[in-house]
């Protein structure tokens, strides 16, 4: 499952992820990270059974954690099932099912490539 971390300015330089990995003994994958001098936005992939453990560990360190349940939505009135989103997604969120584009939301890391790449403006990120 995907967790979105919003890291506040005061703690952005702390080794937060490393300390959570050590504390929870959990394997996690950093799927997207944008960290600058003042803040950070990080998306992690964590096994469903460890999700709560990891979320709470980050929250104890002052990180705002959001579970990304439906990170991206497709407007089916606008979608023409062309497939322009399929090959540009780094995580394989979109695929053809009998030539209809279907979305596996669980894979989305909210990079936004598909939003700009959709010629019909049918995709939106649900930002939390």
């Amino acid at each position: 499952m995907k967790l979105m971390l919003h890291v506040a300015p005061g703690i952005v330089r702390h080794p937060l992820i490393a300390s959570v990995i050590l504390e929870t003994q959990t394997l996690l994958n950093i799927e997207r990270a944008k960290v600058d001098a003042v803040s950070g936005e990080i998306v992690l992939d964590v096994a469903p059974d460890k999700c709560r453990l990891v979320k709470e560990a980050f929250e104890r360190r002052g990180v705002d954690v959001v579970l990304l349940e439906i990170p991206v939505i497709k407007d089916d009135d606008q979608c023409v099932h062309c497939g322009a989103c399929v090959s540009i997604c780094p995580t394989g969120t979109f695929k053809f099912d009998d030539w209809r584009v279907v979305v596996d939301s669980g894979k989305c890391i909210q990079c936004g490539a598909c939003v700009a790449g959709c010629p019909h403006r049918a995709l939106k990120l649900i930002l939390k």
Partner: protein
Amino acid sequence: MEAKSLSEVNERIRDGSVRVVTAEEMPNIVDELGPAGAVREVDVVTTGTFGAMCSSGVFLNMGHSDPPIKISKAFFNRVEAYGGVAAVDLFLGATQPSEDQGMEYGGAHVIEDLVAGKSIDVEAEGVGTDCYPQLELETNLKLEDFNQATMVNPRNAYQRYNAATNTSDRTLHTYMGTLLPRSGNVHYSGAGVLNPISNDPDFEYIGVGTRIFLGGAEGFVMGSGTQHNPQNGFSTLMVTGDLKEMSPQYLRAATFHMYGPSLYEGIGIPIPILNERMALKAAVRDRDIRVPIVDYGVPRRDRPALREVSYQDLKSGMVDLNGKEVSTSSLSSFYHARQIAGTLKQRIENGSFLLTQAVQPLSKVGSSRPMKQTKEFPNVGDVMSRDVVTVRESIGIEDAASRIVGGKFDHLPVVSDEDKLIGIVTSWDISKAVANGNISKVSEIMTRRVYSARLDEPVELAARTLDTHSISALPVIDREGHVIGMITSNDLSRLLAGRRSH
């Protein structure tokens, strides 16, 4: 040899006994029954395609105002339409961006809004003549308010289309969609097995006057389209139809990010199976239709082809490019192409769509030559400075600073032991390093992702690279990657001002 006539097929459509299949079903029928059996069993094969067709637009007649106006310039929802055809005839092109929203809303969106029944803001400027005194007007119009709204598309329904990838190191936004760097993906367009022309490549049926399915309505082939190139398997059609009869389901506006608006259109053509030859041609499969994958990372007309693939390969979702599995996806919709072929099949079966005898076959010879360019643009090599100073990454920043002071440029290209370009250092990088302290070597501050220009590329391309990345100078390299010069924004300004440096 089995054969039948077009009037026999139309007779069967009228009496309801016609046998229609889609072009997707036809190959297996021919495999099973042979061409003679297929002629006996199948009367019509329906095709369909649904994709971005930029070369499209609508002639609109607004009727005369009082006092009358001879329109020189007109805007529909702030999208300019061409006013150089008589007083109140206008041509609205699909790719024209709007004045206020830019490429997010364009001619295609106006067409989509009209077909959806929405009201459009019209602003017009007049010439002002004795017979047409009105100088400007504003009004709101719906599709029904126009006398005529006739779609005329100069180039539609390409027989097949080159697939696209990008070997450069930055993401490209093109009319072939988002192309990821280092061949991160392949995009393609076209319906393959369902493509109209691929099922009648020698125009045994399709010709001037052929009745077609266009945007949900009945349309007609006017002739071959622009860039029609049947010798090389890239035939196109020029088509027309009544916009008032069209449906929003088959006409969809689109915007390609950082490229512009385009119109997705549905086109379907029925092909009668009059003889065994036509049956064999309509049995074409995805694997028989091949296209090159071309490299859009090369911003030139003659983009290199990396390899040739079939639509079957492209539709599989993965192709091999130089030993690497690369994900493919389409920009056209096969889902809608199928629906169009299916809808056309129903219309023929229920007797509401008759086939036509072409007035004249389409030409088997076309032209898609490159542009004749009479004004020569200089190449980078004509404009660049050759007295460039390069450094190795191991030298100290004091040394680098003195070379910048002693040389012509604020930029020092950094080269490897083999004299190949590996980075660049600017006077700003050095100032920053001095301000921060404790940095001593060029290798610690140089930018390794360095943009460069080639000796033999047009200055236009170098100018775009400078502009895209907001930089002011580019090292010029030869084919081996050796730095042989420098081109700066100053060189380009001098060129525009008409004063060459040498």
